[in-house]
């Protein structure tokens, strides 16, 4: 046979470009890739942007006033004016408790018939508050709002009586980065990490596993294609797809949901790129180990999607988790990316946070890549 008029490097480049072209064509023709990269972000963003909120509004609150008069009505009025409550009157505590049991209201404010008498006589007038504690997070918030409304009323009442309330220590609070404590502003940046995990790990794991299932891997193996070229050829198109999904999500977040982006786009790009590489390495590793779509899909959900959701600090605070679980979170790449994202979006370029987390992701990338190199070989066993 004639020697080919191409040198080794040119042939390697040709093989890699061929892989990239093939992989890109497959992405373009597979509606499910496009769906995961562009439709799923929209669905998730709308769900989280509009559907999910930890900020209570209009808490249905039962109010029982056993003896209505000026004092008790003024307290009830304070709750009616608050934007946090939708108070409903009940004539007896039994009725209100029934409503609480039937989940028609979330809490009860109960002034007994001696309320006004004790208030006027200066003896501590008790106001009983019952909250439904099932959703503890919500109950905490409800408690906080009730206390706020009560304090406001108390100050107002005492001032009207002519002897303002002694306040030994007053709290002056300042919340940085998200003064309104808007939960959307912290949930939406975290979604970028979720979506990139889906593209990088889950989609890649399933797509590579598909080659095993369909037997195309076997044919590809018996060509001059090197394992490294195959990996790089597969990574690049999915890298581009993932970065596209990221850019799309960020654009939606900023323009549709008005989430501030205070950091530099370069930092966002660099950290996303690094995270994408880590996710792709995990996806490749899963597909190499699983070798079939069904197992790859399941493993990807359990080891990438769920941890990105639960263990990354995206919703749940890592500090509050038990020690062993906190240790586990250190191998969840999304943990570092979420930290960077929340800073970049809300705080701006906080370089110590940025570099520390970038370093951690780089270490993970090296570990996963080394594992991929070790596990990947052109053998069927």
């Amino acid at each position: 046979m004639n020697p080919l008029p191409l040198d080794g490097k040119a042939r390697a480049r040709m093989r890699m470009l061929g892989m990239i072209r093939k992989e890109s064509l497959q992405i373009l023709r597979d509606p499910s890739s496009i769906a995961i990269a562009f439709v799923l972000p929209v669905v998730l963003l709308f769900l989280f942007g509009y559907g999910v909120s930890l900020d209570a509004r209009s808490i249905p609150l039962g109010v029982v006033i056993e003896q209505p008069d000026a004092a008790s009505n003024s307290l009830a009025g304070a709750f009616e004016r608050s934007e946090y409550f939708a108070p409903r009157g009940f004539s007896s505590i039994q009725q209100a408790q029934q409503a609480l049991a039937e989940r028609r209201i979330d809490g009860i404010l109960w002034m007994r018939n001696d309320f006004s008498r004790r208030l006027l006589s200066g003896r501590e007038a008790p106001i009983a508050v019952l909250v439904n504690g099932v959703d503890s997070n919500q109950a905490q918030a409800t408690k906080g709002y009730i206390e706020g409304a009560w304090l406001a009323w108390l100050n107002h009442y005492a001032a009207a009586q002519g002897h303002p309330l002694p306040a030994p220590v007053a709290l002056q609070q300042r919340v940085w980065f998200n003064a309104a404590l808007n939960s959307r502003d912290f949930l939406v940046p975290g979604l970028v990490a979720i979506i990139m995990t889906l593209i990088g790990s889950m989609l890649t794991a399933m797509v590579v596993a598909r080659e095993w299932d369909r037997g195309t891997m076997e044919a590809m193996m018996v060509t001059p294609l090197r394992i490294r070229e195959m990996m790089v050829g597969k990574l690049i198109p999915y890298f581009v797809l993932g970065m596209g999904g990221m850019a799309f999500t960020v654009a939606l977040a900023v323009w549709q949901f008005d989430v501030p982006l205070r950091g530099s786009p370069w930092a966002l790009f660099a950290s996303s790129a690094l995270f994408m590489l880590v996710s792709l390495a995990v996806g490749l590793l899963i597909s190499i180990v699983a070798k079939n779509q069904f197992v790859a899909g399941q493993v990807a959900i359990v080891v990438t999607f769920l941890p990105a959701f639960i263990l990354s600090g995206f919703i749940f605070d890592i500090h509050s988790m038990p020690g062993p679980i906190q240790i586990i979170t250190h191998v969840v790449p999304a943990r570092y990316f979420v930290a960077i994202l929340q800073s970049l979006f809300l705080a701006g370029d906080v370089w110590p946070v940025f570099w520390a987390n970038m370093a951690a992701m780089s270490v993970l990338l090296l570990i996963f890549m080394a594992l991929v190199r070790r596990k990947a070989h052109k053998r069927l066993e």
Partner: protein
Amino acid sequence: MPWHILAIALKELLALLRDPRSRIVLIGPPIAQLLVFGYAATFDLNHVPVAIFNEDGGGAGRELIARIAGSPHFDIVARPLRDAEIAPLIDNKKVLLVLHLGQRFSADLQRGKTASLQAVLDGRNSNTAMLALNYLRGILLDFNRDWAMRQGQRGPPAVLRTRAWYNEDLNSRWFIVPGIVGLLTLVVTLVVTALSVAREREQGTFDQLLVTPLRPLEILIGKALPGVLIGVLEASFIIALAVLWFDIPLRGSVGALYVGVLLFLLSAVGVGLMISAISVTQQQAVLGAFLFLVPAVILSGFATPIANMPEVVQWLTYLDPLRYFLVVVRGVFLEGDGYSLLWNQYWPMAIIGVVSLAAAGWLFRHRMY
């Protein structure tokens, strides 16, 4: 007729349990998720890192700091000495909260003037910030009352006496773990049933099944039964772990809980079979199940309250069977509910179940090829 159906159900069960991969799907992820969710998914704040910038040397200030340090919610991890140190602590996420006691803090207090305590919070995680603020307010409230008492001042004319029903300590694990019963049961049943027809289509066994005298309806019921059975076992397993391992109180009627479980499974199986009847390949079935699961979980009130959602989204949640079932599990576990209080949750699940099963049956007959 029941004989055929039993034969199909038995075959489905065997096919599922004899496949090592399916067994793993049934056992592995649920346990992993139960542990992860049970331990990691908590809204309770513990050991929030706090920095105290104390410019005051007085005893009153020290007393307040001692109270904060003694709270399980806060850990004092830094004591900056200059104003300029505050910003980097927060920016770099070293602390969530910085408390600043000015030079005149104790002096003001002693003279009966209002002393000010400045708190700076990291709002990047707004929920954590809000909870931390609530804890701080609680500590301050107690401090103020005690201080006023010691000074012989009158306390506030009216006081709140707050009690939480059902979950007295407001432990978020009590809220999350019963929710997992619903979540995992849904995931497992959905995956099992969604794959059941798609797998037969892909492996070619579906044709072999269709040329037998079995009617589509019989096949449908035969495929639904193992889903329900596995769902009941899965739910029972998680309920048992919730009670025995996580110490969640089970206060209500177990019968009422299981009525809920069965109706919920009916709807989950219906949706799963519907997805399965539409999908041609297993990959499509998995993707379909995933596309149903994510919104179903987010809109169910599993982690975030439905009441906080905009109205349009709240309407959507009425289509979500998990929404109703979560009320049932939490109602029975924590609130001690019986049948009568749960009736309003039962019938929507029954309707979703019947409608989705009918749709699955229709799709079955019209997508036989």
